[in-house]
């Protein structure tokens, strides 16, 4: 049986979900025997490949580059998973959402050249940091800030056993 092509990406989030993924500890060895990690902040691959089976998305969508990348990834991926509260709800990055974008950037950077206000070296900041399911179709949701390693493992185990992963009960918990 060929290995599952797994990818992960880190958008507007703190990397805590990836840290929690690494907290799988010795279970990572079992995972490594069953998946190829084809794209991730923890591997050195720059281009998102074709034919990815599963993508774990950490973080909300906060700028145009992230939105573009996510749309591209969706097209190349069978199962897109919102991985953690920022991707599922907007969470901490969405704290800025009630404040108008320009007012917020000016408060942070003052007058003059403001990165992210317009498209430039830094991608343009979107008016609000959004949950990923408002941008693309999302197949599965793993809530948690971060999702505990055991919850991630429950999800991955079902996936690797060829079942449709369905989190339920205490595994559906925000925060």
């Amino acid at each position, binding site marked *: 049986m060929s290995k599952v092509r797994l990818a992960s990406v880190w958008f507007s989030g703190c990397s805590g979900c990836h840290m929690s993924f690494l907290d799988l500890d010795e279970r990572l060895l079992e995972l490594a025997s069953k998946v190829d990690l084809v794209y991730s902040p923890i591997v050195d691959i720059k281009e998102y490949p074709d034919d990815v089976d599963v993508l774990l998305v950490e973080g909300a969508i906060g700028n145009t580059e992230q939105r573009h990348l996510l749309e591209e990834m969706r097209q190349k991926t069978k199962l897109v998973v*919102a991985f953690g*509260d920022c991707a*599922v*709800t*907007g*969470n*901490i990055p*969405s*704290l800025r*959402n*009630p*404040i108008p974008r320009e007012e917020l950037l000016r408060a942070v950077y003052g007058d003059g050249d403001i990165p992210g206000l317009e498209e430039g070296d830094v991608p343009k900041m979107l008016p*609000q940091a959004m*949950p990923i*399911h*408002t941008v693309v179709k*999302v197949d599965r*949701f793993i*809530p948690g*800030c971060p999702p505990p390693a055991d919850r991630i493992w429950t999800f991955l185990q079902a996936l690797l056993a060829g079942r449709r992963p369905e*989190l*339920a*009960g*205490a595994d*559906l*918990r*925000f*925060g």
Partner: protein
Amino acid sequence: MINLRIDDTPVQAEPGQTILVAARGVGIRIPTLCQVDALSPVGACRLCLVEIRNWNGRLVPACATPAQEGLDVVAHSEKLTILRRTILELLFAERNHICAFCVSSGHCELQDLATELGMDHVTFPYRFPFLPVDATHPKFGLDHNRCVLCGRCVRACSEVEGAYTWGFSGRGVATLVEADLGDPWGASKTCTACGKCVQACPVGALFEKGKATAEQVKRPEILAEVTERRPRV
């Protein structure tokens, strides 16, 4: 005694008891949010909606509907789960309920309901409203971002403490709980600082100052502990 059926279980209730209390008596759990023992029911949150088969499938709030002879109540069905989850999603979408850094995380009735009702994400667009936090009171704080407008604080203040400090202002999604006639809480002349509103609050909207993330445990049951000790008039 009144005889009725809840989820096809024969149930007996005392006259005046609600469907919710009758269900609890036989161990049938119905989700609630605005209901708390010792306070009058208002049926505001609609999470306890049940279906009455012999009333043409009418939906009624179990917390505010008296048990009646011969009622055939459905408390759990796929349809009711979807309805309750939809109501819950609307509550989450209405304000900025960010569990990750909430004082009540881990001890929150709204957070628990998401787990109970199997809500894995919110399908409605979030409103992300700009709402204030009132930190003028020396002992307590009020974060409107986390308020679900259940009115438990309003009822605890009027019905148990008798201070009538809390009320509602505005309409619909613009509704806010407010102290006196919109004064900052710390400037309230009627507030006795008893903290019953804080204990009644099911979420992190009312909290004790000094509590950090996940540290605020509430004891809404103190309301009944107070009222049960009072002489009946």
